[in-house]
C-alpha cells in the first residue's frame, strides 16, 4: 500500500472526478470521518438494505432493553394492585391514574427526603467547588513547595476503591479524630467527604494548566491578588470544566446509596434512595413503583438538560490516566 490518501497530499492514483465531487459534497453536508464501513459500500443496494436492517434492529433492541423497563415503571405506578398481579399484564394501564404517585408522595413523605437529598447535593456542590477549585489553582499556578507530593498523595486515593475504606471512613465520621465530634446524621458527613475528590482536582488542575500563564501575569501586574486572579481571570475561562465538575458532584451525591445508608441512619435524615429502600416492604407495590419514578426524575431531568456536559465529562473520565 503506497497511496497516501490525506487531504494535504493529493492521491497518486487518479480518482474519478464525479465520485470525488460527490464525496466532497457529502462531506460538506455531514462532516464525518470515514469509519469501519465505507460510504461506497453503504451506497450499494445491498449495503442500503443491510444498513436499514441493522438500524431497525438496533432501534428496536435498544428501545426494548433501555426504554421499555422505564415505560413499565411509569405505567406500573398507574396500575391498581389487582392490575399489577394480573397474568398476563396488559401493555397499557386501564386508567390514566396518578393516585399512586400522590400516595407515594404522602405515604413515603417523599417531599422531606427529596429536600434532604437536595440539601446534601447542594452543599456538596458548594464545598466541592470551593475546596477543589482553590486546591487545583494552588497546585497548578502557585506551585508551592511540596505541591507535587501533595498532588501525588491526592491522586493515590483514586487507587483505593471507596468501598474498601467505607468502614474506617464511617468510624472517622462517627468520632472525628482530634476533635471528637460525631458528624453522623448531620449534612457535614456528606458535604466534607464529597469535597475530598481527587478526580475533580485532577480534572481542574489539568484544565488550569492549559490556561496561559501570561494571562495571569498580566492580571498580577495590574495588582490583582491571587484570589482576585482566580475569581476574575481563571474562573470565567474555566466554565466548561466547572460545569462538568458541578454536574458530576450533584449527580453522584444524588445517586449515592451506601454512604448515606451508613451516615444518615436517622429516619428523618435519609436521602430519597435510602428512604425508599428501607420503606419498600411497608407500602403497596404501585406506591413503591411510583416512588421509584419520583426518585429517578431529578437525575433524568438533569440528564435531559445537561446531556452534552455529562457525555463530555464521561469521556474525560474514561480517558483519564
Amino acid at each position, binding site marked *: *500500500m503506497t*497511496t497516501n*490518501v*490525506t487531504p494535504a497530499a493529493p492521491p497518486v492514483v487518479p480518482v474519478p472526478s464525479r465520485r470525488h465531487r460527490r464525496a466532497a459534497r457529502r462531506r460538506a453536508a455531514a462532516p464525518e470521518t*470515514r*469509519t*469501519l464501513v465505507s460510504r461506497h459500500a453503504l451506497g450499494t443496494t445491498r449495503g442500503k438494505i443491510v444498513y436499514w436492517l*441493522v438500524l431497525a434492529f*438496533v432501534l428496536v433492541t*435498544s428501545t426494548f432493553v*433501555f426504554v421499555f*423497563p422505564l415505560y*413499565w415503571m411509569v405505567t406500573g405506578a398507574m396500575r391498581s394492585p389487582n392490575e*399489577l*398481579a394480573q*397474568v*398476563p399484564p396488559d401493555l397499557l394501564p386501564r386508567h390514566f391514574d396518578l393516585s399512586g404517585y400522590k400516595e407515594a408522595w404522602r405515604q413515603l413523605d417523599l417531599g422531606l427526603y427529596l429536600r434532604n437529598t437536595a440539601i446534601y447535593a447542594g452543599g456538596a456542590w458548594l464545598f466541592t467547588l470551593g*475546596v*477543589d477549585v*482553590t486546591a487545583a489553582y494552588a*497546585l497548578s499556578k*502557585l*506551585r508551592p513547595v511540596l505541591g507535587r507530593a501533595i498532588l501525588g*498523595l491526592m491522586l493515590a486515593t483514586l*487507587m*483505593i*476503591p*471507596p*468501598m*474498601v*475504606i467505607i*468502614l*474506617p*471512613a*464511617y*468510624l*472517622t*465520621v462517627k468520632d472525628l479524630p482530634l476533635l471528637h465530634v460525631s458528624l453522623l446524621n448531620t449534612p457535614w458527613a456528606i458535604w466534607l467527604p464529597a*469535597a*475530598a475528590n*481527587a478526580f475533580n*482536582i485532577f480534572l481542574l488542575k489539568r484544565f488550569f494548566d492549559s490556561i496561559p500563564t501570561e494571562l495571569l501575569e498580566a492580571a498580577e501586574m495590574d*495588582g490583582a491578588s491571587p484570589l482576585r486572579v482566580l475569581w476574575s481571570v481563571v474562573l470565567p475561562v474555566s466554565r466548561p470544566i466547572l460545569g462538568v465538575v458541578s454536574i458530576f458532584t450533584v449527580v453522584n451525591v444524588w*445517586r449515592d*446509596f451506601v454512604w448515606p445508608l451508613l451516615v444518615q441512619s436517622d429516619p428523618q435524615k435519609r436521602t430519597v*434512595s435510602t428512604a425508599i*429502600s428501607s420503606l*419498600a416492604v411497608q407500602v403497596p407495590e404501585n406506591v413503591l413503583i411510583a416512588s*421509584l419514578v419520583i426518585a*429517578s426524575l431529578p*437525575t*433524568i431531568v438533569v*440528564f435531559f438538560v445537561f446531556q452534552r456536559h*455529562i457525555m463530555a465529562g*464521561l*469521556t474525560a473520565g*474514561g*480517558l*483519564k*490516566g
Partner: protein
Amino acid sequence: MTTLRPAARPAGRRTGRPAGRRTGRTRFRRAAQRNLTAYGFLCGALICFAFFSWYPMVREVLLSFQKTNFVGAARWVGFDNFRTVLADPVFTDAWANTAMFTLLALLIGYVVPFCAAIVLNELRHARGYLRFVVYLPVMLPPAAAVLLFKWFYDPGPGLFNQVLKAVRLPTLAWLDSTDTSLLSLVIVSTWMNLGSGTLIYLAALQTIPGELYEAAELDGAGLLRRIRHITIPQTRLILLVMLLLQIIATMQVFIEPYLLTGGGPEDSTVTVAYLMYQYAFNFNNFGGGGALGLMLMLVLMVFSAIYLRVSREDAR
C-alpha cells in the same frame, strides 16, 4: 497581599539599583508569600483529604488488627480478625460469588458495549436518540434501578417471566433459586452500567483515522479483518483500561445483594463487600469487617497497579 504597588515594581528595576541582596530578599519574600497563599488555598482540601481519605486508608489497616467495642480503647489482637473471617464458612462463598459475579459481568458488560459502540459508530440516523437511550439507565439512582428490577424478577406477575411466557420460553425463579440468583444480580448491574462503557468506546472509535480503514479496504480486508486488525489494535489501550476499571468496580458489588437478596438464597449471593458490611453492622465486629476490607483492598490494588502501569505506558 502584594505590598509593592504595580507602578513601583518595573520602575524600581529600571533604575538599576545595586542588585544582589535586595532583589534576592524580595524574591525570597515573594516566594514565601506565594507559598503562604498557596497553602491558604490548599488547606480546605488538605483537611478534607486528611480526615476522609488519608486517615481512613491508614485506619483500615489498623482496624483489621484491632478489636474494638467503642467503649474502651481498641485492643491489638494480631491476626485474630483474619483467623475469624477465614474460619467463617461463608468466607469462601463470598469470594467465589464475587469472582463469579465479576466474571459474568465481564462476559456481558465488557463485550456488549464494545460491539454496541462499533455498530453505533456506523449508523447515520438516530444517533442522538441511541446515545441518550443507552446512557439513560446510568442516570437512574442505583437504588431505584435495583428495586425496579426486584419487581421485574417477581416469579409470578413480574415482567421478566411474562416476557419469557410471551415468547414461549420456560419461566425462571430468578432471585429465589440458587441457580439464577447471582445471574439476576449480574443482569441488573450490567443494565445499569452498560451505557458508560458504550459511550467511552464510541469516543475512542471516533479517534481512529479513517485512512487506516481506507487503506485496509484497498488491500482487500473484509469487515471482520478490519475490526481485528484496525479497530481493536487502535483501541487496545482504552480496552485494557476499561477492563481493569470494570474489574475494580464490579468486585466492590454491594448494593445489588443488599437490596435484592440479602445474600440469599443459601448464601448464593453473598459478596465480599456485603459480608464486610454484615460483619460491621449486623455482627458488630468492625475488626472482622476491616480484615475483609483489607483483603479486598489488596486484591483490588493489584488491578490498580496494573492500571497505573498501563496508563503510564499511554503517557509515554
